[in-house]
């Protein structure tokens, strides 16, 4: 049970080694709670390790994650040691875990508000961009005429990073929020349109022949043959589009919008509050990786027929 040992070590480092003397800027509080938290993690791993064997699945799962839990425990202990205890890493740029934890406690309301703002901006922008991109891609893949007019447009505008439009968008569009939404949508639109298009255009002709001899209408061919056949490619577009939206979101919030996580980080740094920047960044990490994970889950479910056909 190396994982238990690692977390126990992290706990004892936190609790036993004295903190750096406080300065005007840095006051250490909550060290004891942090140590207790690490100890709790160790205790939970130990309990699950002992009793999990009786619950099917849990034991195996713990065994699978044990190496990671160990490394994480060691890293947490090392980081605590390098910041609060020995100050090896330059202060105040690198903040100790307890400082960040205190931010989460004291600034919870503002952080939550920022998170919701970011999430709203991202959700609307990405939904519009990906939706329009999907329809653009289907139309381009299906109709030669649409392709003639849209392909050059997509080829010209698409490769330009959405953030490049930022200065102009903020001036031309009525509000900063609309400008940001435009940028996020644009970032999602291009990969989505391109990959949906190539997916639809790449569908084997024999799939259409089969459906046509069975009496399929044009509409059926588009929505029941072309689109399902193109879905693997559409999901690649969704992943790329989502990544692009994240970039646009952060750029937009750090430069223009007066709300959201990007703004929070920028604002905190304006006051020299590095610990708050770390806290905001941490939420971003969890948010973005969480959304990507969600998309992976969705893909695995929708494309479950691919299992056994391709090697993921």
């Amino acid at each position, binding site marked *: 049970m190396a994982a238990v040992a690692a977390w126990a070590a992290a706990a004892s480092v936190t609790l036993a080694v004295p903190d750096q003397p406080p300065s005007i800027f840095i006051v250490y509080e909550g060290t004891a709670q942090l140590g207790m938290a690490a100890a709790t993690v160790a205790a939970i791993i130990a309990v699950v390790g002992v009793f999990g064997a009786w619950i099917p699945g849990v034991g195996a799962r713990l065994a699978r994650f044990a190496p990671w839990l160990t490394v994480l425990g060691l890293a947490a202990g090392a980081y605590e040691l390098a910041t609060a205890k020995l100050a090896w890493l330059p202060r105040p740029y690198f903040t100790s875990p307890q400082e960040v934890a205190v931010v989460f406690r004291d600034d919870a309301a503002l952080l939550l508000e920022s998170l919701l703002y970011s999430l709203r901006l991202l959700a609307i922008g990405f939904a519009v961009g990906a939706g329009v991109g999907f329809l653009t891609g289907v139309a381009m893949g299906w109709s030669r005429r649409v392709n003639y007019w849209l392909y050059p447009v997509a080829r010209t505008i698409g490769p330009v990073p959405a953030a490049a439009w930022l200065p102009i968008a903020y001036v031309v569009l009525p509000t900063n929020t609309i400008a940001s939404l435009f940028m996020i949508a644009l970032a999602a639109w291009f990969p989505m349109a391109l990959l949906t298009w190539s997916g639809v255009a790449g569908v084997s002709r024999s799939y259409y022949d089969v*459906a046509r001899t069975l009496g399929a209408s044009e509409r059926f061919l588009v929505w029941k043959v072309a689109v*399902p056949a193109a*879905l693997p490619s559409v999901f690649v577009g969704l992943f790329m589009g989502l990544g692009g939206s994240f970039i646009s979101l952060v750029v937009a919030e750090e430069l223009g919008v007066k709300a959201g996580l990007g703004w929070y980080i920028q604002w905190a740094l304006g006051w020299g509050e590095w610990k708050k920047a770390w806290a905001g960044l941490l939420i971003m990490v969890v948010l973005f990786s969480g959304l990507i994970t969600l998309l992976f889950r969705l893909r695995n479910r929708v494309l479950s*027929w691919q299992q056994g056909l391709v090697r993921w």
Partner: protein
Amino acid sequence: MVASPFPCTGGPGAATIEVRSLSHQFVIRGSPLPVLKDLSFSAAPGAFIALLGPSGCGKSTLLRLVAGLEPPTAGEIRVGGQLVRSPDPSRALVFQDPTLYPWRTVWRNVALGLEARGLLRTGDRRVHDALERVGLAPFARALPHHLSGGMAHRAALARALVNEPSLLLLDEPLGQLDALTRLTLQRELVRLWEGGGFTALLVTHDVDEALYLADRVLVVGARPACLIGDVLVDVPRPRHHADPRLQELRRAVLGLLGFDWM
């Protein structure tokens, strides 16, 4: 129209086929490539016709034209008296490759024809019946990549049959199968046709298969394809591959194709 000397096994739904001076050519990089030349034949309702010819002679193209997937360069095709202009669910085509949709279960692949025409009801009996006819009912919920080659071809057959076609077009449907599966499926094809109420037009390059399955074998020469022989297979069913009369006809057909040294 040539009257079939055999009792008509097809039901009232089975369609006649009339092909009149049909020619077709592809244009490849600006130069025309003739594939069919002045082809004419007709078939009685409920007949089982085999079109036999060497590989690449344009047989598959003929089936695509009869199915209505492409318009012919010249000549006309009538099925059941109607001029063929576009694909129609009454003319089902079974492709060389089963081409099942990998994202649909076997059941939903077979239901495709009904769904495309807006006739599908949930838990439709007709889908189940079609699966039953080809012996795939236990695999209704499987995905295509779980099926063996023979099973995939059965599913493709069921998908073609679910629309209750009056003409079944078979484009070397057994060409990719191993010899044993092939024999089994040949027998089932005859069984389906006998109970089916449809005219069958089979394209193949396999002499034994053509003679075993069909009432009449139309022999087609190398490209551009034109008719070089019309052989009546006067052997009652059930047939046996080793039947001496079939061997005799086999020699005759191979002779027509220029293989008289065999």
